[in-house]
């Protein structure tokens, strides 16, 4: 495909403004998402994946702010757009669904109205037309009897249903990019599978690019074509999802893959302990010098403790940030 990529992030830094000083919560983040591509961002809690997504839609609030770098949507810098221009992107071209379907819907408004509002807001439809489209949108997320369901209030729906409604709202205006921030964490495992399947199918049908944020490497690898792994505010590895599973390169990714339980493996059968990564994530105020993973890394050498590794391009495509793969 020609033309600029849908989303391009270059050397993004997000600062945590803390008293007098600024602490970089996230730095050196670069990635791109093409039209219709599925991209996963994986990392443990607090590694900065959610605030990266918020930065992307221009919704960082104090004490967080963008400290440097560029975010481009279709080649245009998002930060330089006026507030109204950013708002016109949100919900219309870039949509987002959240972790908590329980709280993400307005409790005093029928769900049909909440879906219809998107058409009124971004497409300038009349309420009558918008209500008709809302029924269609609800049908498209496989909700039974949508013409009756639009009158329901959020408390009348189950968690899975609410997440379907959230997806209907997010995809209502046919966005180019859907950001899914831990979309299934709050759901039962069986419902999780349905929702993921639904989201994948709908986005594939409509050519919507997906940025999936999760701590679940298995889920992301299943849904996304490319995966980026974050650790302590930095990208450590970015590869095709098949490769990252087969041959993880960064020691952190290796640890993650090794810690996944596999059906029928010795670990699951209880004969072997599951692998774990020793140690804990460093606090944001206390990141170690050099490679931030070095205190927990079995392969760490002197250079890892002093020098920040550069990102290196792999021959097979993909990036890794580790001295041992330079």
């Amino acid at each position, binding site marked *: 495909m020609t033309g600029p990529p849908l989303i391009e992030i270059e050397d993004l830094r997000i600062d945590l403004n803390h008293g007098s000083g600024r602490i970089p919560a996230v730095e050196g983040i670069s990635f791109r998402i093409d039209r219709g591509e599925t991209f996963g961002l994986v990392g443990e809690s607090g590694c900065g994946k959610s605030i990266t997504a918020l930065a992307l839609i221009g919704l960082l609030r104090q004490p967080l702010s963008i400290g440097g770098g560029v975010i481009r949507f279709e080649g245009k810098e998002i930060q330089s757009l006026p507030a109204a221009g950013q*708002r016109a992107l949100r919900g219309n071209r870039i949509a987002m669904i959240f972790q908590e379907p*329980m709280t*993400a819907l307005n409790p005093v408004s029928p769900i049909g109205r909440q879906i219809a509002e998107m058409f009124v807001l971004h497409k300038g439809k009349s309420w009558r037309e918008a209500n008709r489209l809302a029924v269609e949108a609800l049908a498209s997320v496989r909700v039974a009897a949508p013409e009756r369901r639009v009158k329901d209030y959020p408390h009348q729906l189950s968690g899975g249903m609410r997440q379907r409604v959230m997806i209907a709202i997010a995809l209502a205006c046919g966005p180019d990019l859907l950001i899914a921030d831990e979309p299934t964490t709050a759901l039962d495992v069986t419902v999780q599978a349905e929702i993921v399947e639904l989201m994948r199918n709908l986005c594939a049908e409509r050519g919507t690019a997906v940025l999936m944020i999760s701590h679940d490497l298995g889920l992301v690898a299943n849904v996304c074509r490319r995966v980026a792994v974050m650790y302590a505010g930095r990208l450590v590895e970015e590869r095709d999802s098949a490769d990252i599973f087969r041959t993880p390169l960064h020691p952190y990714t290796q640890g993650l893959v090794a810690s996944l339980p596999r059906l029928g493996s010795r670990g699951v059968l209880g004969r072997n302990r599951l692998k774990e990564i020793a140690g804990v994530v460093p606090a944001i105020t206390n990141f170690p010098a050099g490679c931030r993973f070095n205190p927990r890394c079995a392969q760490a050498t002197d250079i890892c403790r002093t020098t920040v590794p550069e990102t290196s391009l792999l021959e097979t495509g993909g990036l890794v940030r580790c001295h041992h793969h330079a």
Partner: protein
Amino acid sequence: MKLRANLAIGGALFAVAIFVGLLAPWLAHTDPVLDANLLNAEEAPSWLWWFGTDGQGRDIYSRVVYGARISLTVGIVSQLINSVIGVGLGLSAGYWGGWWDDVVNGLTNLMLAIPSLIFALAIMAVLGPGLTSLLIALGLTNWSFTCRIARASALSLKSQGYVQAATVLGYGDLRIMVTQLLPNMLGPIIVIGTLGMGSAVLSEAALSFLGLGVRPPYPSWGSMLSEARDQITTAPWLSVFPGLAIFLTVLGLNLLGDGLRDVLDPQSRSRHT
């Protein structure tokens, strides 16, 4: 659901007051202003003059009935003005925060520090007596509680998931305030508004009693009390019936407000059952 006595009684009293005000021309026996006849002056209550007559021979019953129009108009309209100002300022202050929040907080504290009746008196002194200035004076002086409640609700609601979701979905600030925040804080606002209506009826009576409200010969309950105070020993019915009307209306509004709070506030509901 169990029938709540305060809600039922309060609602009934308020409904009767509204009903009397609306149907005044049909319920009244005589014209409250024009039908003065000195031959009937200071008659005690009887089958002919239900509430008696005043010094000019006007029927007190008819004047109380027409007085409902003025008292309720003042109560409802001035409280509506208060609610609009209070919600507008409080909601925007809570949602936007920053310097605007400081300004609104300062204003609210100022309003709370000055007794609202004194402030209303000052406004009336500038505007002169009359119904319109009464509405303005009472409408501008009693919004601080509504403002406090709206601001506190907005502060707690804006961190709710659905408000943040609305931001992400591209809602503008105004749309978020109207569609996301306002409907979710309506319960306490309605309660405060109902209670405020009761105090506005009282304030109207007080201002009219002091001669700053509705001017004679037009009947408002407060101005009737004011005119009757000289004859309180000789013709007590002149003050008893307008006083009773004020008492029942304010009682009704307060009971209604309490009842609505029980229904709308889940925490006080669980305390009662």
